[in-house]
């Protein structure tokens, strides 16, 4: 479904992603894990068109998208919930969600998906008319995921959905991702929290300073000696 080939991305002279390749198949949850500055966010931003690669190719459903403008990438069925949530603080919850469906023309479908998001996160329905900026971090994360769902994506990219959340809230978000997975949503999940991400991913890639150093099924990476040492805080 998504195929990234030898992707290289730089900020000015600093190369942040140094030739990585990976694939996401339909129905899978794939995770990119790695420490701070590994290039995870850069990779997602390049896939969604916010950044342009120096070299390499990005293919989505058989079409090359690495020079497609960001606002068109989403219409192809690729939604990106950005790092740090980035909800629109002075717009209401409902307006935020409706903006997620900005590119869609099917009103009835949008209404149905809005209800679906409200069913998934009841707090959003209860506070639909409030400015999103008044929400707690966890609530904002739910809104960010819900907003990304509103485009009815074929592939959902989530950048560190657990960032800055309490353990309880983190569990809630992770169980939501599991729920989405069981509904058949394809997900590319970026996480620093390798334990949580690998436990629910079908396949995982370990990124280190712009390169993929390890790749395997989530299950295998979770028990991998090197991964346990470097990312799961064991020695």
């Amino acid at each position: 479904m998504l195929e990234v080939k030898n992707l290289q991305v730089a900020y000015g002279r600093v190369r942040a992603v140094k030739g990585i390749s990976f694939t996401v198949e339909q129905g899978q949850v794939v995770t990119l894990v790695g420490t701070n500055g590994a290039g995870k966010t850069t990779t997602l931003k390049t896939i969604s068109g916010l950044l342009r690669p120096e070299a390499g190719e990005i293919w989505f459903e058989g079409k090359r998208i690495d020079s497609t403008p960001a606002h068109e990438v989403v219409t192809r069925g690729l939604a990106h919930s950005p790092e740090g949530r980035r909800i629109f603080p002075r717009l209401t919850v409902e307006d935020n969600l409706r903006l997620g469906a900005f590119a869609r023309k099917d009103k009835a479908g949008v209404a149905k998906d809005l209800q679906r998001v409200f069913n998934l996160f009841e707090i959003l329905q209860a506070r639909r008319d409030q400015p999103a900026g008044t929400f707690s971090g966890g609530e904002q994360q739910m809104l960010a995921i819900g907003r990304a769902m509103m485009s009815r994506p074929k592939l959902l990219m989530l950048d560190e959905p657990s960032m800055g959340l309490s353990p309880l809230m983190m569990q809630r978000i992770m169980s939501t991702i599991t729920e989405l997975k069981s509904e058949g949503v394809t997900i590319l999940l970026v996480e620093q929290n390798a334990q949580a991400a690998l436990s629910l991913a079908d396949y995982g890639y370990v990124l280190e300073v712009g390169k993929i150093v390890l790749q395997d099924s989530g299950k295998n990476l979770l028990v991998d000696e090197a991964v346990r040492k470097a990312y799961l805080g064991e020695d």
Partner: protein
Amino acid sequence: MEFLQQLVNGLSLGALYALIAVGYTVVYGIVQLINFAHGEIFMIGGFGALAVWLLVPGESLSIWMLPIMLIGGMLAAVGVALLTERVAYRPLRNAPRLAPLITAIGVSIFLQEFVRLFFGRIPGFPDSKRAIPFPQIEYVTGEAFNIGGVTIQRAALFTLVALAICAGFLYVFVNKTRLGRAMQATSQDPDTARLMGINVDKIIMVAFALGAALAAVAGLAHGLRYTNIDFKMGFLAGLKAFTAAVLGGIGNINGAVVGGLVLGVVESMATFIPGQFGGSAWKDVWAFVLLILVLVFRPQGLLGARVVDRA
């Protein structure tokens, strides 16, 4: 009574500032650019209205000319605004802030000189190097109204009504339409707006066009009110309107309207200041004193700046 009279004068003057100030504020709210050429867009709105009037044979002063002139002014102002955005500002979108600012000053001078040198060259058009009489359309000019001892010029009333209609339209557009919400989203977080499928280039064009359309209304109102227009009229009006936008909180549309009205009223009230520093000669001084006071004590403006804030 004198106080009421000055209040009315101030509000109608302020309405003119407000119509122009909206253009500074919407563009700033989206691209953080102070478009110093916006005063010239106002001037071009006035010249566009005049040009259409000159092109329609018969030199009619009938009220039916008013909508035609308005459309002419808007087409000219919006066209020029979109052109400057495309050729002067867009290429500098990712340049350091100073570059587009200096470009805007260049565009401002260019537009003034362009109108000065070329408007009068069109066959049948008057010399544009000096002030040109503006057609005094029936009903919206002429004998002033007198309501309980307070006089209000017809053109002044026209300006106030035009502002009310434009403000209402803006409110609905920004808050109730899909495009308006996309504009708010872009102003709050442009990158994330792109992830929603919003074409940010298009939104920027909408912001420029919206500001220009309102400036054209002001250009027409200015011509009716001061009975003539000239190629430099955008300079001081633009500066005042920019002051109004900052006063209200730049980036905040309601603020631009409130800032414009407050500034107009402060200027008229300057006549009440006794002695040497009062009177209309000092009104500009007091207007800018107000700006400095607001910037010192409430730098975010009266209603608060609504610039981009990121989580």
